[in-house]
């Protein structure tokens, strides 16, 4: 694809690449096929920076930076895969598994889950931390969708897509710290929401099995984040991508 933007030379783990000036390390890596893990990042939505698994190292700087919010620069030496980064990412994934109730074997998203993929990619085969085993009720009040907070990692993709793309702002995060949770309107059952348009974008972008269609069995839930990316690209750039190409 031709692009008129000026380019800069960067290295990813020692290999030289041409990136576009002004783009983020994440976008460059995606385009160039360099794998950088991510959970909260979704092209087309505003940056959040909460999951922290996309941290990279720049040259010898000991301060790690999120790839999603770091802009490429000429001669930038980006390290995406060092023992330190691997250790940190694995620890973060373990924290996520310990804080919710993620039981892949009974999950609608089993085999199609970004968190599960991340656990595999980071080599996380067991959790060293104490499981918090929170008591959270599944919200199946919506006629079309179901929300299982046990599987929510608070990436806020749903909050952002609902606010920024759909414009409904049904969802938000309430409380704080370890008590933080996703809420519809005033913390009411989703089905009682008067602002939900049933558009299903929140379900489409969910990286885990937290949001799903009603009536799906284990491993049956396929998310479609690319539909939303396509929508955002069409809105902001006037380009309608082939859904198969996106993501």
């Amino acid at each position, binding site marked *: 694809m031709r692009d008129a933007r000026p380019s800069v030379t960067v290295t990813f783990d020692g290999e030289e690449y041409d990136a576009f000036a002004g783009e983020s390390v994440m976008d460059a890596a995606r385009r160039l096929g360099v794998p950088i893990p991510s959970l909260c990042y979704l092209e087309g939505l505003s940056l959040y920076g909460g999951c*922290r*698994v996309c941290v990279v190292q720049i040259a010898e700087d000991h301060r790690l930076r999120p790839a999603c919010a770091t802009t490429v620069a000429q001669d930038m030496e980006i390290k995406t895969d060092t023992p330190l980064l691997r250790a940190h990412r694995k620890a973060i994934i373990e924290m*996520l598994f310990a804080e919710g109730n993620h039981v892949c074997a009974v999950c609608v998203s089993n085999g199609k889950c970004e968190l599960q993929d991340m656990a595999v990619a980071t080599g996380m085969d067991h959790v060293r931390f104490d499981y918090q085993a929170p008591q959270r009720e599944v919200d199946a009040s919506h006629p079309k969708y179901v929300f299982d907070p046990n599987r929510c990692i608070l990436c806020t993709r749903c909050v952002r897509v609902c606010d920024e793309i759909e414009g409904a702002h049904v969802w938000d995060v309430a409380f704080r710290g370890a008590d933080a949770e996703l809420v519809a309107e005033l913390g009411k059952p989703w089905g009682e929401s008067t602002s939900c348009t049933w558009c299903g974008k929140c379900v489409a972008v969910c990286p885990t099995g937290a949001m799903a269609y009603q009536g799906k069995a284990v491993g049956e839930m396929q998310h479609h984040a690319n539909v939303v990316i396509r929508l955002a690209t069409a809105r902001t750039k006037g380009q309608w991508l082939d859904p198969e190409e996106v993501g």
Partner: protein
Amino acid sequence: MAAVIDLHEVADREHEARSRYPWRIKACASTACLSAGAGATVQALEQTIEAADLVLDAVVVPTGCMGLCSRGPLVRVLRRGGDETMYQAVNKEVAIDIVRKHVRNHEIVDTNLLDTNIPFFTSQERVVLANGGVIDPDRIEGYVAHGGYEALRKAITEMAPEQVVEEIRSSGLRGRGGAGYPTGNKWALLAKAEGDQKYVVANGDEGDPGAYMDRTVMEDDPHRLIEGIAIAAYATGASKAYIYVRAEYPRAVERLDRAIRVARRNRLLGRRIMDTDFTLDVEVRIGAGAFVCGEETALLASIEGRRGTPRLRPPYPTERGLWGQPTMINNVETLANVPTIINKGAEWFSSIGTERSPGTKVFALAGDLVNIGLIEVPMGITLRSIVEDIGGGIPDGRSFKAAQTGGPSGGCIPAEFLDTQVDYDSLRQLGSIMGSGGLIVMDDTQSMPDVAKFFMEFCMDESCGKCVPCRAGTVQIHTLLDRIGNGDAVWADLRHLEQLCATVRDTSLCGLGQSAPNPVLSTLQYFGKEYEELLSDEKKEVADA
């Protein structure tokens, strides 16, 4: 439009009014002394003066903090053209005695005399707190009589904005909120930034538990803060400023609101300040109980009425801050230094303290010490001098164990480093930070793993929940500390603890998470034995096997 205040005239009138009374009794009416009963003290002083027919001879002036809070309520008796006497623990009865004996009969009330010739007072150098215990915070006249608003007049009538920025830059002033970023550089960034509207924000969200420096400035010398903000706004081209105050400080909010109104009436704020083209509007915004709002991007979110969660930087607030406009956030104490720097010059300021950390620092000194209170010392003073001289050492025959600086973001410094100079860089090298100025001293009865757990619980409760390492990592660290404290931990837990701390420190989104492990890491480093002793022998062996 109202007339501009004539600073000289007000000062002259104030000096004249002052010399009318042979006796002036200054009673500390700051929060700490009020907690100790200063309200009744002031009332008793006033009533006794009237009852003893001394209304023409003595006047009571309620003032801000005099410093030695553990001996409060404090009272200073000043005789015209003469000596000054300080009293401690002045309850109602003592107050009556002071009027009847000291003022009427010139007899010192020996029982409550406080010697001001002790290191607690003589080792201090008061710049920010210069007016503490001197002026009535609610009267602008008192502030003006002590040179108030002279710096603002000088800045906006005699100096170009760039000159003001340069003056602050060459003074070497660094942010007093904890991280120590050079203030002049920040000002220069905002001055250079382009936007329809620039904002200056004073960060008065003092959340470090055990610290009340900023509250004291806001409550006891509100005009100093306002003057500092006005100078900053002039230098950077901002026309709107916010003071973000913790909701836990209602008196500060009240005094600042009143001071802003008075300043506006006197054309020290508002449109065409002092008949120049400089215009500035200042508004107080109140927090609602969230430590993380001390972080600058979280603070901005809170001013905008949103959840106080930090956001990614860059862009830095000086590029895109409040409502997307260039915004500069300075700590309250930082801004309170500004009027004095403009008045006395950058050179004078940088002659105090050390080369890389010039000026003074206000500390809230507390814990296991003889003297507890608010102190202002030149940077570079040793910890030992603060603990032993100013603090008066450890009471009850106990010995010093650790000094905690920087609160939940700081660390515990052991006795072997008591001779360390207190400045940004030295404290950082020891694994602590300067922080906003809480300094808690602990004696040998305190358990360091307990202290670490206390701070971790704080960070866990105050984590905003946005990023995973801080939200979930602090919970896991706390769980481990709990297990260690209960004697249920094994060696592997200690190793996990350190690894977890490293992940939270390296990968968290904002300063709260990045520094949350500091209390654990510093106590592990200096008091590791205490952690090891908590592992039971049996479990140690199991782990070793």
